[in-house]
């Protein structure tokens, strides 16, 4: 049976580190996808994803809202990506890094999508992750979460609305920041 993020976090803290593996399993793909977009290099994204999970495990006691595990994990991953970028720049000291750390692929730059997924309510997030990152059909999601298929489509529908709302809000913020930064 699938437990909530809160339950897995609490079990991991209570001396069952194997339950942290369930959280890794649940979020490895969205986290990798987020980091691939941030660092633009797949082996480094995988390395950074591993490092992020390990740091999250070591800091699990500090997580004040266990239900916000994924959002907190993305925060850690963002810092790991920045450290990687900084160290790469130091290592190579030329523009080569800038070329490898960015990409022309628009899909790969789409990391705000994973940030928006992080702020969804947990049941909505779970359905999105299973449907798109685990590649399950709606029927398979319904079986996995033991819910009627109609509930899955309704949850998806609501999740799409929330995601679009969140992405629009982020775009507005970005536009405002860009305007402020214009000389």
């Amino acid at each position, binding site marked *: 049976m699938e437990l909530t993020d809160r339950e897995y976090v609490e079990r991991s803290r209570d001396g069952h580190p194997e339950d942290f*593996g369930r959280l890794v399993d649940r979020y*490895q793909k969205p986290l990798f*996808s987020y980091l691939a977009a941030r660092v633009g290099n797949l082996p480094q994204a995988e390395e950074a994803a591993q490092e992020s999970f390990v740091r999250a495990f070591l800091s699990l006691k500090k997580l004040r809202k266990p239900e916000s595990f994924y959002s907190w994990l993305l925060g850690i991953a963002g810092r790991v990506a920045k450290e990687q970028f900084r160290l790469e720049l130091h290592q*190579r000291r030329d523009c080569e890094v800038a070329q490898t750390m960015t990409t022309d692929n628009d899909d790969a730059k789409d990391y705000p999508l994973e940030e928006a997924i992080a702020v969804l309510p947990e049941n909505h997030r779970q359905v999105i992750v299973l449907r798109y990152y685990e590649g399950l059909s709606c029927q398979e999601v319904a079986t996995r979460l033991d819910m009627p298929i109609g509930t899955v489509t309704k949850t998806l529908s609501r999740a799409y609305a929330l995601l679009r709302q969140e992405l629009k809000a982020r775009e507005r913020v970005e536009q405002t920041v860009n305007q402020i930064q214009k000389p």
Partner: protein
Amino acid sequence: MNCAECRDNLAALAEALLDCNESLQCRAHLETCADCRAEYEAITRLQQRLTARGEAAAAVRIVEPVMRRIHREEYKPERENIMSRLLKYRWGFGLGAAACAAVILSVILLTTPRAEARAVEALAKGAQAAAKLNSIHLRCQLRTVPFDNFAAIMPDQGFVNIELWKQFTPELKWRVEKPGRVALMDGKSTLLFDRHANFAMRLDQPSASAFDTEWLHKMADLSQTLNDELQAIQAHGWPVTVTTESQGGRAKTVVTVEAKSNLPEDDYLKNKFFETTDTRRVYVFDEESELLESVNVTMHGSAGDVSVLEINQIDYNTLIDASVFSIELPADVSWMQKQQSTPGDEKYSNMTAEQSARTFFEACGRGDWNEAGKFTMFPLTDPIKQYLDGLELVSLGTPFGSAVNQDQFVPYNIKFKNGDVKKFNLALRKDEQTGRWLVDGGL
């Protein structure tokens, strides 16, 4: 159908989950309503974005390496001193690692006896010298068997040649090879080929390391490895010594580190892999170039000290021919597929490790390769079938675990068709995809 009813159904329409009648009604409404049509298009655009993101991450499987690292971290003693705080959030990339080494060096020089400080200085200089590599080629000898996985150490076996070619720039590529097995990453995908069993596996993405070659990649990432040694020396209080020798008329600095795995002596995986072994590591640096020239690793096992790894040639920044990062596979190679969930899987996923081992061996005994194949990560090729066909399961023991990973080990006693008897432990790993216990080693 009105706008509210239509919008309620848009997600189901996009998933093709409406029945024929509902779908027709919904589409008819979309034909006439620009607002609902715009809403539907926005949903399908978002679906496309999500699908693209999901597909890009489809091959990622990092549960096992993350949990291995977590288990290792759990065995590290906690030391709340300035050094452990410095080391807690370490990252090691080239000069970054060397810079970190320099910080540690400055602290250690102030706090440790002179001999130890000299050893640490040699390691730190080696880390710095190796920080801007374009490529590296290691030739090693490891006590193991030619066809088993790349990480297994077998002190009672002879030496097997093992080589690593690694290109860092302009694009990361690598190849690890021993007589029975090759793993390579060509910048786009990662491939394993087992010559002995004639099977191959491809990951459709590049990787920094894979197929149990992580330890050798760590060796090749010298600045990181030496930096790790510096950290471990300080964090765990590992004894370290340094001597100066003359070899071939050149002065060499020889640093010896006594490393502890921190695993209990009675753990089954103790002394099976580098990370689980108590070792003496001898690093030889050229004093002029400050580069590492060779490494010898001696295992402190229950049967005494045994030299298990010798890295006797390290080539820095040589041009590696592009053909090294490709391989021609035999036409009849069997491809290793990830186990897929199939109807009736509950029968297997509900089995205990012991029941899985029993079902596997019994299926091999009667040559039921379809059933036996439910429990393997690798294809049952002809050489493997010949090895297992007709075996008789004499007995199974009580399964046990290790602190290193989440595998279960099932003691077994089997009798082969030719009368040979084998008593060993079958390693079984819980498969994330199917929930089955799959054979991970010990055959």
